[in-house]
Structure formats: C-alpha cells, structure tokens
C-alpha cells in the first residue's frame, strides 16, 4: 500500500467530545476498511455528531440519520475538523 504515511493533520474522531459536531477530513486505512466505513455513511466531507465518547472504549456517532458504534482504534483513523456552524448541524 503506497499510502503508508499517516498524515496527522487535524484531530481524530476519537478525540472529539460528546455532543460536538464535526466534518470528516480524511480517512486512513486499507480498501476494505474504507469501503466498510463508506457503506455506513463515512466519507470525506460528511458531517457527523459524536453522541457518546467517554475517552475510553468504543464511541457512538450520528451521521446520515444513523447511529453507528465504532471502536476507538477505528475512530483514530478518521480525521476531522470542526463543522462550520450552519444552524441545524446539517
């Protein structure tokens, strides 16, 4: 895999606190992983709200009208940036 370089620009999803809304910047990982994430609604540019993040263990996010649980390790591979405030968060 050519994209071994992990570009750590911007915080990862695992560091976003409960209740905060963010936008996905970049997703790292192999084809299989990215494809699974994409089929559940995770794509660069997608907005999501972190529903639950206790700082340890898996987290819950809400995106594209769906609640998705993902492991902390998986969340670390998703880089995010603050979503621009547009009123209702969509």
């Amino acid at each position, binding site marked *: 895999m050519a994209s071994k370089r992990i570009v750590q620009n911007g915080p990862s999803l695992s560091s976003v606190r409960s209740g905060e809304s963010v936008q996905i910047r970049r997703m790292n990982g192999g*084809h299989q992983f990215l*494809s699974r994430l994409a089929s559940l609604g995770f794509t660069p540019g997608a907005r999501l709200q972190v*529903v*639950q993040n206790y700082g340890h263990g898996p987290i819950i996010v809400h995106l594209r009208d769906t609640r998705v*649980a993902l492991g902390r390790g*998986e969340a670390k591979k998703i880089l995010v940036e603050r979503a621009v405030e547009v009123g209702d968060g*969509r």
Partner: protein
Amino acid sequence: MDGSTQAVPVNGKQAMDVLNGSVTLTVALAGQPNVGKSTVFNLLTGLSQHVGNWPGKTVEQKTGTYRHGGLTIHLVDLPGTYSLTANSQEEVIARDYIIKERPDVVVAVVNAASLERNLYLVSELLPLQSRVVVGLNMVDVAAGEGMKIEPQVLEAALGVPVVPMVAAKNQGVRELMDTVDRLTRGEISYEPNVPEIRADHRDVLDEICALVTGWVPAPYPADWMALKLLEGDSEITAMMRDQCLPVEQWDLVHEILMEHEDAVLAVASGRYEWVGRMIRAAVTRPRTGQITLTERLDRYATHPLWGVLILAAILGVVFWLTFAVGTPLQNALDVYVIGGLAEIASGLLAGLPSWVSGLVVDGIIAGAGTVVTFLPILVIFFAVLALLEDVGYMARAAYVMDRFMHLMGLHGRSFIPLFLGFGCNVPAVVGTRIIDSRRARLLTILLAPMVPCAARMAVIVFLAPIFFGRMATLVAWGLIGMSLIVLAVVGVLINKWVLKGELAAFIMELPLYHRPNPRSIGIQVWQNSSEFLKKAGSLILVMSVVIWIFSTLPNGEIQTSYLAGLGKALAPVGALMGLPWEMVVALLASLVAKENSIATLGILFGSGESAAGLQAALAGVLTPAAALAFLVVQMLFIPCIATVAVIRQETKSWGWTAFSVGLLLIISLSGGIGVYQLARVL
C-alpha cells in the same frame, strides 16, 4: 452457483406455465440490515419458506412463494448488506445472485427513517440488469422522528416505483407485490435515474473499461467490473487478475489502479451526492434538538456503567426464566413423556430378548429424550435472542461488552452467545450466528464449551460437599472462575496463534428501538428449533445409541462392557489424577450428557438410586485432591455430544469439530493432572 438455474426465468421474460396459464416471477429481496426485510419476507411467505444454505457458502438462504392473483411469486431473501462491494461473503452472494440469476424484479427494502444511508444500496442496485422496486418501509418510524417523506417525489427522482409501507403492521406489503406485478406487465414506466461516477474519476473509469472490455466473463457487465476494480473490490480484483486478463493487460490496469488508490472514497462520495439529489425534494427534516425515544433509552443502555448493569439484569431474567420455566418443563418432559414412552416400550418388548428392549429403551428412547428435553431451554433462548435482536437491543449489548471482548481479539457481539453457555452450551454454539465475521464466529464457537453449563454445575453441586464440606461453595465458585480464566487465556492464545488475522473493524449500526413483531419472532423460534431437531437431533440420537451399545456389549453389563474396558485401558491416565477406572468411565459417560456422570457412578458403584450411598462410596475411594482433579476435568472436558453435534452443524467442518474436542481433551487432562499433582504436594 450451479444447479439453481433450472426454474429461474430469463431476464424479465416471465416463464409461462402452459398447464394452468399461471405466471411465475422471481423476485429478490435486497436491503441493508435493520430495515425490516425479514418481516416483509415472513409476511409474504409465512411458513411456506424453505431454509437452506447458499451453494458452497455458510450463509443462510431463505426462499418462499407468494401467490398474488394468478401470479406465483418465487421470493429469494438476499443477505442484508450495506453495499454491494465485497466486504464479506454476504455482499458477494447478493450481487452474484442478481447478476447471474437475473431475477425479474429486485425489491429494495429501505428504512424511511435513515433514507440517506439506505439509498446507498439502491445506488448500487440500479446499475445492474434487474428492475428495481423500492419498498419504503417504516414510514411510521420516520414520521415519529419528525421526518416528512413524499413517496411520489422520491419516485419521480429515482425513476423507479416507490411503495410506502409499514411491514410491522402489515401495511403496504400487498401493494408492493401489486407494483411488482404491474411493473413486469409493463403497466408502469421504468426509467431509472442510474447514478454516474463523479466527474473527476470519469476518465479513469473509461480507461479501465476500455482495457477490460472483451475480457470480462459472460454475465458481468464490463462497466460494472471496471467500477468495482476502481473501488478496489477484493473479489473482482482477484478474479480479473487471476482468471480473466492476460498478464500484460492486467499490468496496465494495475498501474492505473495504483495511481488512483483513493478512488474508493471518491466513488462512495459520488453515490452519496446522487442520494442527496434524490432525497433533496422528497424529505423534509426535523429541527435538531428533538430528543427521540432511542436517544433517551441509549443514555442508559450504552452507558459504561448503567449499560453493564442493564445487561446484567436482562441476563439475570434469562437465567431466571431458564430455571423457573425451562428446567421444570425439561423434567416434566423427561419423567412423563420419555419415562412414559420407556415404560410402554418395556411392556411391549417384554417377550423379546433383553438386548432389544435395552436398545429401544436405554438407547433410542433415552437418546430421543436427551434431544427432546433440550427443547424447552432452547426455545426460551431462541425466543429471548430473537426478541432482543428484534427490538434493537442486541447491538447495545455488544457495544457495552466490546471493551472486555477486545482482550480476546473478539468484538462485543461474541459476548451474547458465550453468556448463553451458562444455561447450556448448545444454544451458545447456535447463537454464534449473530456474529458477522467468520473468524470471530469460529473462535467464539471454540470458546463456548468452556463456559460451565447448568448440567456441569449440577455435578459439582453433588460432588463438592462430599469432599470439601463447608468449603464446597468456595470450591464451586473457584471452579467457575477457573473455567472463565481458562476461556480467556485460550481465547487470547487461539487469537494469537491459530486464527491469526486482522481483527475485523468494529463498525456497527445501532438501529432505532422499535416494538417487537411477535410473528417474526415466532417464525424464527420455530425455524431454529425445528432445525435443531432435524440436524443436531438425529446426530445426538445416533451417538446415544452408539454409546449405549459400547456400554452394553458384550455381556449386557456396564461393569464388563467395552466402555468399561476403555475406562480400564485409560486407567494409567486416570492414575495421574488419582482417579480409579470407574471415574474415567464416568467422564466418558458424560459425553452423552454431563449429568450422566453421576448416574454412571451410581451404576458402577452399585449404589443404585440412593444418592447417600453413592456419596459414601465415593468418599471411600477418592482423596480430596483426586476429587478436585475430577471436578476440574469434568468442567473442561469434551463437551457433550449435543454440543459436539451443533459445533459440527455450525462450523460445517469435521476438522474444526475435531480441533475443539482435541483442544478440550488436552486442556482438561493437563488441568486435572496439574491440579492433582499440585494438591498432593501442598
């Protein structure tokens, strides 16, 4: 997929049944998980459904028929998948079926409450050859969440029929089939708005398409293959590389693919952009800030502390149900039905040689008894599992347990079946079906027999007080703790050395909670139970008879039987644990059912029915160290044949079944020997 082509009509052309003038259609049901697809399927097919496996796969295949006027609809329930890209065998099955068998219509069941993500699958279905009808399910749930969806607007955007429904209340399902009927008769126009690749990747796709055209095998569309290559689909990539393209040609394709490794996300983003255009006019969204039922329940159900407590409470109720309802029923069946049958059979066979009645009463009827008496507990477990899955709780339980299961390289989902093992290992092994990755499922199946089942507890409860007096309770808890520690250690070791491989990523939808559907649950319980009776049941019966034969031949006395002979032959192994040959035979007899150990000891020590007599006899031949060793072996020994039978049924592999048996044999014997030698020194 061979052998299944005979009855399937060719692309859209309905197979006319000349004899009665009726028309047969093949309709495939597709949909993401948690959209109510199985409710739709159950409503349409009822008990007419046939459960089997997809050819060459371990995934369950359900088919059934539905009659609609003069029309016979052959329904095929495709596995629930989020996309059609090869992430698991489910996706491969779903897309191969549609591409190779070309059903007349694919009904895409979508959940109106999460339409945006659900239409992603539809965006992958539309480019395939079969016509698509969208079943817009759960419109009531969407309305409850405050969403307004206009089906006609969605229909106009998609260019394919959209039928609103509430399958759980049997609303709209007939209309769905009516629409399918009218579509195939050409009464409805069909002009699908097929999504196209995003502009920035169109040229690359064309390039790949030009390179593979002419090399793509028959039913696959070349442009679809090119798109899957661009997405990095593992199955299609391997197929084109190894079977279809000449090496030089593949190198050219490969070079392009390497330059566009990020295409997978571009393609997916393009699909979501298309979805966004489809729903823009059709869906009006609620203001955020409204707190839904799911959000309120999840504050507790997924909380690190409350979530665990709620899970513990639910499992406590399951235990209570098993012991309060299941066990008495089990005993009643054993005493009245099986006991009654045995009595009648003994009476009828009185005039015949004693081995005939022995075979019938102690072999066949006792074996059938084992099968039947398992049923009440299994039905309870199946019902609870189906209920928790149906209301949407199961995903929460998995979420809460995920951090603990990670230690063994497993996900939260594996916890549920393992817990069921405390009641009985059989539903634990069968219950691993809820685990989506094959590797994790196999590991869970291998670990399940190490959970101490109720029958093994019964043996401890009988034996521990004889040797350990007031310490008995402590010893019992110690043995349970030991089993769980062994389970965890073995889990870590197998994960590290035997079933190596990436831990499948933990990404799981948490579906909305909704009211359970009794019909769906009923059908599932009925199917699982009858499947157990048919498959595992027949194997248990045969093995019970075989063990009876070995415990009877050659002279009809267990003390001098081949089984006893085997016990005596194995006495040197027993001696390492301080166990006389009778105890070895008791372990062998526990293969039929764990509680058999005690009954066998009763026969071998000639104490008959008196429990006190047996306890006294055992106290005479066993030292406490040997008794402890016996209990350790008993806890971790080869599972009973019912469990072995379902391990074979669920793994579909004698190899893994043998591995499980061998593993437990080694663990239990080394544990027993170790404990005995250690306890003797101390």
